[in-house]
């Protein structure tokens, strides 16, 4: 049963401008890792922000389990959907423990703080991302890969069933790209629904269950990785000739000719 649904969603930055997200209807399957791919400016991040309600939709709707997601208030939305922006800023001197505790904010009452259940969840979140025992470390003293895991721990502490991530492996070296994506993929086994904006098609095929390929604000293809990442689709959306082949049951996508890709 599909969980998160966009119906004919259209978003423009100015009333007269060309829509950045243009009548997108898409369903993100429950408990699956869906990758959003497409060239720069195709509307991937904008779609995520529109789902979060940061950008007003000029038409269309976003439903979670058949109920509208917008207009329920920030707190209620945060209990259902978590979001990791592309760039994250942490003030100096904030510790990992404080970061994770703030992640659970939506569940706290005005004068109360985290309870027993919350604290257990924090420990679990830190253990899941492999940062247990580091709660007293300042976030800004962590390495790049550790910091990205810290942000994911904060999101896990939020305990939402749907998690949207905007380029979660940006700026990371290959090792950490694999580690973070493996971690994100493992979350689907806990029943989380993952939607992540990714750039690398090989990383996408290695880790995602489904791919939504976008071009010019529209969804071009939405299916499993092998159906979506094809030479035809890559030609049409990314504008280069690709060799797409299966090796050891895994899809690999590389440019056919190194001199062929022109800017």
């Amino acid at each position, binding site marked *: 049963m599909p969980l998160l649904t966009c119906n004919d969603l259209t978003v423009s930055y100015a009333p007269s401008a060309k829509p950045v997200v243009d009548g997108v209807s898409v369903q993100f399957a429950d408990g699956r890792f869906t990758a959003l791919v497409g060239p720069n400016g195709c509307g991937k991040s904008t779609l995520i922000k529109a789902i979060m309600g940061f950008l007003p939709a000029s038409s269309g709707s976003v439903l979670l389990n058949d109920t509208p997601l917008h207009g329920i*208030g920030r707190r209620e939305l945060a209990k259902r959907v978590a979001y990791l922006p592309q760039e994250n800023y942490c003030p100096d001197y*904030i510790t990992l423990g404080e970061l994770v505790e703030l992640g659970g904010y939506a569940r706290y009452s005005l004068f109360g703080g985290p309870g027993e259940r919350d604290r257990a969840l924090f420990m679990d979140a830190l253990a899941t991302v492999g940062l247990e025992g580091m709660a007293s470390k300042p976030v800004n003293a962590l390495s790049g890969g550790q910091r990205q895991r810290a942000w994911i721990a904060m999101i896990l502490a939020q305990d939402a069933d749907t998690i949207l991530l905007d380029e979660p492996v940006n700026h990371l070296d290959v090792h950490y790209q694999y580690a973070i994506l493996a971690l994100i993929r493992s979350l689907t086994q806990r029943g989380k629904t993952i939607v992540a904006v990714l750039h690398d098609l090989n990383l996408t095929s290695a880790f995602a269950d489904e791919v939504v390929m976008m071009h010019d604000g529209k969804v071009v293809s939405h299916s499993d990785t092998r159906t979506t990442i094809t030479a035809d689709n890559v030609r049409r959306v990314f504008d280069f000739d690709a060799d797409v082949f299966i090796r050891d049951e895994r899809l690999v996508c590389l440019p056919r000719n190194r001199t062929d890709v022109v800017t």
Partner: protein
Amino acid sequence: MIRYRYPAMLAGATVVLAALLANLAFGATSIDLRSVVRALLAFDADDYDHFVVVYQRLPRALIAVFLGATMACGGAVLQGLTRNPLASPGILGINSGAMLFVIVGAFIFNLPMEWQGVAAIAGGLFGFVSCLFVTRMTGMSKDPRGLALILSGAVLSMLYGSVANAIMLASPSRRSDFLSWASGNINHVYVERLMDFWWLGALGLGLLMVLARPLTLVTFGREKAASAGVDVSRVTWISVGAVVVSVSSAVAICGPIGFVGLVTPHIVRPFVGASFARALPANALIGAAICLLADLAARTVFAPHILHTGIMMDLLGGLVFAIIVKRYYLSPGVREASR
């Protein structure tokens, strides 16, 4: 799970207590600590030392505590919200706006003293909003270091200060009532105003404490805070309002004394962190201690002359201001490297 820094809080409380006792004990005449404590706990109306402690020094000390707590918390919140190390009530126009409105109210509209608190709050709000407005007019509001914000605040503070001074100087018969207040002075006679306005400061600080957690989230950025469940606009404006109300009530009492709001958050942050739930109480404590010591210094360093506390504070603050500018603005590598 979380770093509970009770030792740091305890140290802060000890510092305040020590500063308070020193403030009460030293001055034109030194009074030994036993007399100070006895004056507070078992007041003897016939004892001159007791009289000095309770009617001259204690009022000043209470004003200093109020001033330090409100200004330091205001500075911590503004620095967090603007992500700017130089932000503080004195620099973003709140102090000078409050001062301007008090002077205009008293000299032009003949407002009675009870209404000066209201005038101060309206003026504080006017000062801050006009500072944001001028920043937007420069078209540099996206400038990452927020230089435009700081410069607008500095320019407007000077403007409002000079207008207020001009109004005062234009009526020689009444200016003496306000001249010393306008340069930022803690005086034991101002304790009546403390009685009138203390609850405004308490209200503001209480609101900030209630909002401590969402306010901390807002310092991470709008989208981050909103996605965690914070109503960002509401939290931002309520807390800015709370800062303006508490800071302006302090200005209404003892005039615009600024630098404690700039300096204290920088002293406190390395010890208790940037989470407001602990940073606010710590700022209140250390801000109070700094004002108590500045007041003590103003009374004793140039004895028998008594300096205005505001002038003493500017002396200290100017130095710290230069250090902060050097650390955050003149060495571009420092902040990037610490990311």
